[in-house]
């Protein structure tokens, strides 16, 4: 395994994530700007997918990048910056989702109708586009059932038994599907991890 996966570089591709993190740790706000340009759509997109509204997704995005600025916990030995940012974004978003009162759920249902929400990515982000394409192709190789359980688990943070209940499917089947789905994805995307 390569020590770090390739980064989703934009036009500012001359600097690796590690170079930018080095500058960031020397108090360089411009490095934060470059990392924002590289990862903000992913962070914001994930928060929006979980929470279903732009206002909360905006708050999470701000929290995540400011946490990075404050050097909260990223250790390059433990994985890529992408992994760190997505994990933090996902867990904070799911926490926020769970903290909502019942009264807000109706609003979330309306605002959370996130269907086919992708539009063409800007040309300057070619390698993000390529990675997105690869991930979509890899997901397309999963069965509908496998993809469904994996996405519910990832984006909604439901436990396997909650998923089993929602889909009216035996718990063992749900577990097998989600694990097989992840293993297949890893196999397909091995060049990227």
């Amino acid at each position, binding site marked *: *395994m390569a020590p770090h996966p390739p980064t*989703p570089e934009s036009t500012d591709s001359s600097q690796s994530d590690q170079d930018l993190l080095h500058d960031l740790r020397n*108090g*360089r*706000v*411009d490095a*934060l*700007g470059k990392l*924002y*340009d590289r990862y*903000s*759509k*992913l962070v914001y*997109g*994930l928060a*929006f997918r979980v929470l279903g*509204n*732009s*206002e909360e997704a*905006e708050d999470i*995005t*701000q929290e995540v*990048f*400011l946490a990075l600025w404050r050097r909260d916990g990223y250790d390059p030995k433990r*994985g*890529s910056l*992408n992994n760190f940012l*997505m*994990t933090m974004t996902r867990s904070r978003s799911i926490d926020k989702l769970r903290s909502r009162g019942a009264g807000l759920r109706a609003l979330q249902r*309306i605002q959370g*109708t*996130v*269907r*086919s*929400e*992708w*539009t063409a*990515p800007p040309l300057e982000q070619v390698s993000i*586009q390529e*990675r997105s394409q690869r*991930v*979509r192709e890899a*997901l397309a190789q999963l069965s509908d059932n496998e993809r469904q359980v*994996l*996405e519910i688990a*990832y984006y909604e943070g439901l*436990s*396997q038994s909650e998923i089993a209940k929602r889909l009216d499917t035996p718990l063992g089947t749900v*577990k*097998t599907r*989600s*694990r*097989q789905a*992840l293993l297949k*994805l*890893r196999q397909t*995307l*091995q060049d*990227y*991890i």
Partner: protein
Amino acid sequence: MTHASLPDHWQELIAGYALGDLSPDEAEEVRRLLEANPALHQEVTQLQETLALLPYDLADREPPLALRSNILTAAQTETSTIPAQTPQRTTHGIHPRWWSVGGAIAAVLIGALAIDNYQLRRQVTESEEIVALLQQPSTQLYTLQGTGAAIEASGSLVVNSDHDQVVILVKNLPELPQSQAYRLWAMPQEGATPVYCGQFNTTAEATTTTTWTPPEEECTAIAHQVLLTAESASDPPIPAGELVMQGVL
């Protein structure tokens, strides 16, 4: 890597660990496996990296344009140890072409937004998002006018089919009780069945600026007419309440 000493289902167990779905027994089994085979930590990392690629499936949702400068400003102000500053970059254009396209419409909308000073920052952000939306070629602007009891209400509806977004701006439309909501409907052609496009409420100040992704494609296509009704918030999406506003292109 060879794993001669590992149980047959070790990959599934590690996947379950990465997914966080292990039973207590399985968790104990994985703990022992990882202890005996430290190389398996790399497998766990790879699976976690794989999960972290899932959001690439969603990669094309643009954050609001003003968010970048908000974050950089916050970073700058909260750190007193930053050396005399590198200027903030604005290469992705926080205010790139504001007034070149749709400027006149934008000016009207920003005027409409300046209803009060409450949450000024949020409004500025919203204004910038709307301006950005107005610059898109696939944007339609409807003028909304109150009817009946809501005759004083006025506003605009901006829809964008590329970004699959609608933005509604209204004023002088009274706030509804919590059990009710204003619902937006699109009528693709004259006499067609209204298509449900989402619901919202106004504030105590009788205004709102709300952005959302509508449930149906017809909502961002060119409509013959758009309608706003006051409905029970939990009713099925069939228009039954009083018509409060209507709009045309």
